[in-house]
């Protein structure tokens, strides 16, 4: 097990009930797990806890058997708002994490180009961030996250601030990239469709109790297509389930 959450609990001081309660989840190495839930169900809090940006009120987070204590490069986050640095250009942004880790310059260049090609941005490597589109920014952020070789990649609704078309395109590419790289990914989304499309498993959170409402394995083989009958069927089924629990 790469990532293990044991009885994880988060209760913010100013709120009446716990945001997250008794969360037990085990994620295998190379697995793509999606967390879905309505807004306010604590899914982003869950990601922040795993990232180490917030401290749990109770329970444990284990990464390869070691307890998580604060943020680290082994759990890189890709944020909803790209989080790129406007004073650096595209490739400098992609190299940022490697630079912090002291990776030799030549290797930085090689790896950065490798992932920029993977997200189709090799021709834009010298562009300033403000001159590329929102979709390209998220691609840059994805390339940056991939260079980190984190044990787990955390994605906090990375496509939800984009228009529908760009967002669909990017999730197709993420599916392809995941098939190529087999990274372990914990993906937060409010979209059931996105979760079913991307995940090996979909974890639905209940906003009322802050607990896991259900965990559903998605056995549709990849590459998946949103119009295939089995996809439509499963998406519908899970949507009903999540909606039922949310009410």
């Amino acid at each position: 097990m790469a990532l293990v959450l044991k009885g994880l609990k988060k209760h913010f001081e100013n709120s009446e009930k716990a945001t997250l309660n008794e969360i037990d989840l085990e994620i295998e190495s190379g697995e793509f797990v999606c967390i879905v839930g309505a807004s306010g169900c604590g899914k982003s809090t869950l990601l922040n806890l795993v990232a180490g940006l917030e401290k749990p009120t109770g329970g444990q987070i284990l990464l390869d058997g070691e307890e998580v204590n604060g943020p680290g490069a082994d759990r890189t986050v890709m944020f909803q708002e790209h989080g790129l640095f406007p004073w650096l250009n595209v490739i400098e942004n992609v190299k940022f994490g490697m630079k912090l880790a002291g990776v030799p310059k030549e290797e930085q260049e090689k790896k950065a180009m490798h992932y920029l090609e993977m997200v189709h941005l090799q021709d834009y490597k010298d562009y300033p961030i403000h001159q590329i589109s929102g979709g390209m920014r998220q691609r840059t952020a994805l390339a940056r996250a991939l260079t980190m070789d984190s044990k787990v990649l955390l994605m906090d609704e990375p496509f939800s601030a984009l228009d529908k078309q760009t967002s669909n395109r990017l999730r197709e590419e993420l599916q392809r990239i995941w098939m190529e790289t087999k990274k372990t990914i914990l993906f937060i989304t409010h979209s059931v469709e996105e979760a079913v499309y991307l995940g090996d498993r979909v974890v639905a959170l209940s906003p009322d109790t802050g607990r896991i409402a259900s965990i559903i394995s998605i056995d549709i083989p990849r590459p998946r297509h949103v119009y295939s009958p089995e996809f439509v069927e499963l998406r519908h089924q899970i949507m009903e389930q999540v909606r039922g629990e949310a009410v």
Partner: protein
Amino acid sequence: MGMIIFLVILIAAWQGFYWIGVDVLGLWKPYAVPEPAGVAKRFVELCSDGTLFEATFNSLMRGIVGYVIAVIIGIAVGLLINHFKYLQKNLKPVVLGVQTLPSVCWVPFSILWFGLSTNAILFVVIMGSAFSISISVDNAIKNIQPIYTKAALTMGATKKQMYINVIFPASLPELVSGLKQGWSFAWRALMSGEVMTTSIGLGQTLIMGRDLADINQVMLVMVVIVAVGIIIDKCIFSVIEKRILKKRGLA
């Protein structure tokens, strides 16, 4: 161009008022009102004997030395205030308070401690601008978008790396504005310091004009002080500011 025409009109109006008020109607005493022609004459005289150049050069040098020291102290205090919660809570209000003091208030101390020397002037300059820089540094860091530091943390940034690779570049635009403001405080404080000493400088030349009842010289020095202030602002700080903002697509 429009600006130059405006200035010409302004000077012409000033000359007109002088003629009417002093020469024609005799409302004002000639020793109390400067006149453009007189200021220009004084300008030529003080330029030809080198006084004006020497005074401007000395003032500028003092201003720069004092300012550089103020920047070092100001940034150090600003970083400390920002970093330690205790100082943020207790020292920052003091710094804010001291920063509101007009720089001339430091003159008595500076004379007692340093005599009528260049050091006394530098002391006034430093006290007059360092704390405004501290406040700017603290604010600039506070205004950094949290996502930058969060992103760097999840890429394994250490505290030192965070300061060098994120906090410094992220706060740079606001930092430069703060430094620009610090310079204008330093330049003003310099004049407060210079009018009290006898070492050659713009402030001293201004006071000499007063002592000689030469109102045109007083006016001339005032114009030079303003001109130097504007030139430094436009040619150095504004250029840097624009370049940074342009690079980030903010201008």
